């Protein structure tokens, strides 16, 4: 099932894959969204390492991935990223895997599940949105001008980004373990790649792909999520056959950082 051209060793380095937890545990793949990298899961993933085979990775262009593998043609749609997830599944020879996809990776997980029906056994979609832009009768939450403004904002903050890319010396006093583990690759990003990933994330339309999901799917909808508002979560829930939806008390778009406890128990409940 290995896709052509995907050398096993290349996949590990390309996507900076880390595997933890018992080898015979059910595979749990955490896929980060636009804006950061696998660091997004640091407060959540470790809580599953007791019983699950936890797989963390960076999308190409993010974090510790191999930037030389970045092909602007391949990664001009979410399909390119989904192909990589499929190759990770092949490479680790995972079956009955659950993909936990946050933000843009929720749709990447949907596409990957269709590519590897024999390997994916469930999906957890956190703050999913199949289409950010409002469209005739569909509420995505944004207009096209808003996305252009986001791209402006990205470009205006190039300098700010180089600041945030610097290795952190002072620890985070609230969670001392956070500061210690941060590496030079912390949320680093190449501005050109970030700009393209933003376009791909916020200009894609994957509404038609939702109906293709056949595995048990949990949709986690945060409160006050301005990126993926309630109406969008409900749309995803209605269009993925047999999906269930849980509303989190966690506020904002990143419950993996703002309320890891609640997020962890919601995922645990789904996994049974």
């Amino acid at each position, binding site marked *: 099932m290995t896709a052509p051209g995907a050398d096993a060793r290349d996949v590990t380095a390309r996507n900076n894959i880390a595997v933890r937890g018992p080898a015979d545990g059910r595979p749990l793949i955490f896929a980060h969204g*636009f*804006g*950061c990298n696998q660091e*997004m899961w*640091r407060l959540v993933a470790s809580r599953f390492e007791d019983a699950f085979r936890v797989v963390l990775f960076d999308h190409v262009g993010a974090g510790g991935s191999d930037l030389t593998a970045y092909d*602007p*043609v391949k990664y*001009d*749609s*979410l*399909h*390119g990223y989904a192909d990589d997830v499929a190759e990770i599944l092949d490479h680790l020879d995972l079956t009955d895997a659950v993909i936990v996809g946050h*933000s843009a990776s929720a749709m990447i997980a949907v596409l990957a599940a269709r590519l590897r029906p024999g390997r994916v056994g469930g999906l957890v979609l956190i703050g999913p949105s199949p289409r950010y832009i409002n*469209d005739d009768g569909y509420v995505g939450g*944004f207009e096209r*001008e*808003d*996305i*252009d*403004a*986001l*791209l*402006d*904002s*990205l*470009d*205006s*903050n190039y*300098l*700010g980004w180089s*600041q*945030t890319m610097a290795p*952190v010396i002072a*620890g*985070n*006093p*609230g*969670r001392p373990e*956070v*500061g210690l583990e*941060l590496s030079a690759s*912390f*949320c680093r990003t190449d501005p050109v790649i970030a700009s393209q990933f933003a376009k*791909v994330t*916020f*200009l*894609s*339309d994957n509404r*038609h792909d939702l109906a293709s999901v056949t595995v048990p799917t949990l949709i986690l909808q945060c409160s*006050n999520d*301005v*990126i993926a508002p309630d109406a969008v979560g409900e749309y995803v829930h209605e269009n993925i056959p047999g999906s269930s939806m849980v509303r989190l008390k*966690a*506020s*904002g*778009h*990143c419950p993996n*950082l*703002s*309320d890891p406890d609640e997020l962890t128990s919601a995922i645990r409940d789904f996994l049974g």
Partner: protein
Amino acid sequence: MSSRRPSGTSWGDGVSAPDEHGIPAARLYDLAPCGLITTTEDGRIQRANSTFQRWSGQSEDELLGTPFGALLNVGDRLFYETRVAPILRLQGEVREVALGILKADGSTMPALLNATLDAGDRGSSPVLVHHALLTVAARHDYERQLLHARRAAEASEARTHALQHATEAFGVCADADGVARALVDSAREAFLATDAAVLLHGGSEARVSAGKLPLAASLVPGCAGGAAPGPESFVAITTRDEDADPLVVAALRSARLESLTVVPLVHDGGTAGVLVCFFARAHDVDDAFIELQRALARQAAQTLARLALQARLEAIALSDPLTGLANRTVLRARIGTSLTPSAPHAPFLALIFVDLDDFKGINDDLGHHAGDAVLKVVAERLRNAVRADDLVCRYGGDEFIIVCPAADADVAAAIAGRVQAEIRRPLDPDDRSPLTVTASIGVCVHRLDGSHPCTPDDLLHRADTAMYRSKQIGKDRITLVYE
């Protein structure tokens, strides 16, 4: 009001007490020349100073409980929630983030944000985030102008680069398929096309000359044969078009594609083919996009026209205009290359010299026009009498030479025999008084084992001598010499 302020934080009862210089801390906080906002860990506003309230046009009551992201214009909200907020939580602080604060009157106030995570007193109190905002209106406008100017320059540079790159690639193309491949490569690079194909129109057929069509050709406009698309045409179809052909939409979706574009390869008002691009994600098809596609397609069409002209000129330079046979230039080159043995089992090279008998009489009696007609017929018959690898040349007036690689004496004699028989046939079988011609033929067979080194001129001389011998002893016959 006490519910606004979380208990147990560092701002206890002493916040309003003056410091040693007599300045009350609360006054400093409220009137600081920057906006100060404190939020919970998940971003809901707990406190905002008077400066920020004044700037934003909102009272503290209106601000309390609002997510910080909601203070921002929508584009910046996306940026803040997906990028800034995660980094703030993971890293503990962010510096100099350029954002736009939405004011109560609907306008946007550009600001720079510094924010720090405050874990409270050894983790026993709730985590808070302190934000400081500075207004940067004038600077912001200037930066936006720079940004847009830089974008315009980059877009222009990218277009120039794409065209330049294509020009270089087209410049080294040897044939039409090479041009098609170069155009596919250029299009994929310039437009990030997931797939691209170039179809060249030969007659009524459209053939995929490079790249691939992920859809059946019958579904792609301009690819299904029939009339070539007009020079002004440009087609863009996306799966979101309501009036798009449902079959095309379904085919695009099943190929994991969202859109396609078709642009004709136009030169001198004619259409040589089409460039088709397929996209996994529908791109904005604006004027710049269309113009660049047209420009690349035009360059490719010009290159195709140049190559066609070049091929015609080469053919003219290397062939005899009357008969279309190869000329002396080609003959000498072919003998030269054939002197190197290429068939080890048959290390021979034969030349057959054919000279028409009494051709001058035909010219004199019937005129040059009839003479030319005879030469054309003979040329055609010689072509039919030889093997596929043999080369027939017109050497001069009524002289022809055939180069026969790997032909020993028997093979060469057989070819010469067929040549003789073909020439003897009546020139016009329908004519009641059939005109016939004959030829004196000389064959020279050379062994390519290095034992008798020779030059093309040596071989031509030997074949000529053999032909002359045929002429001398009565014409219409074959003389064969070999070493």
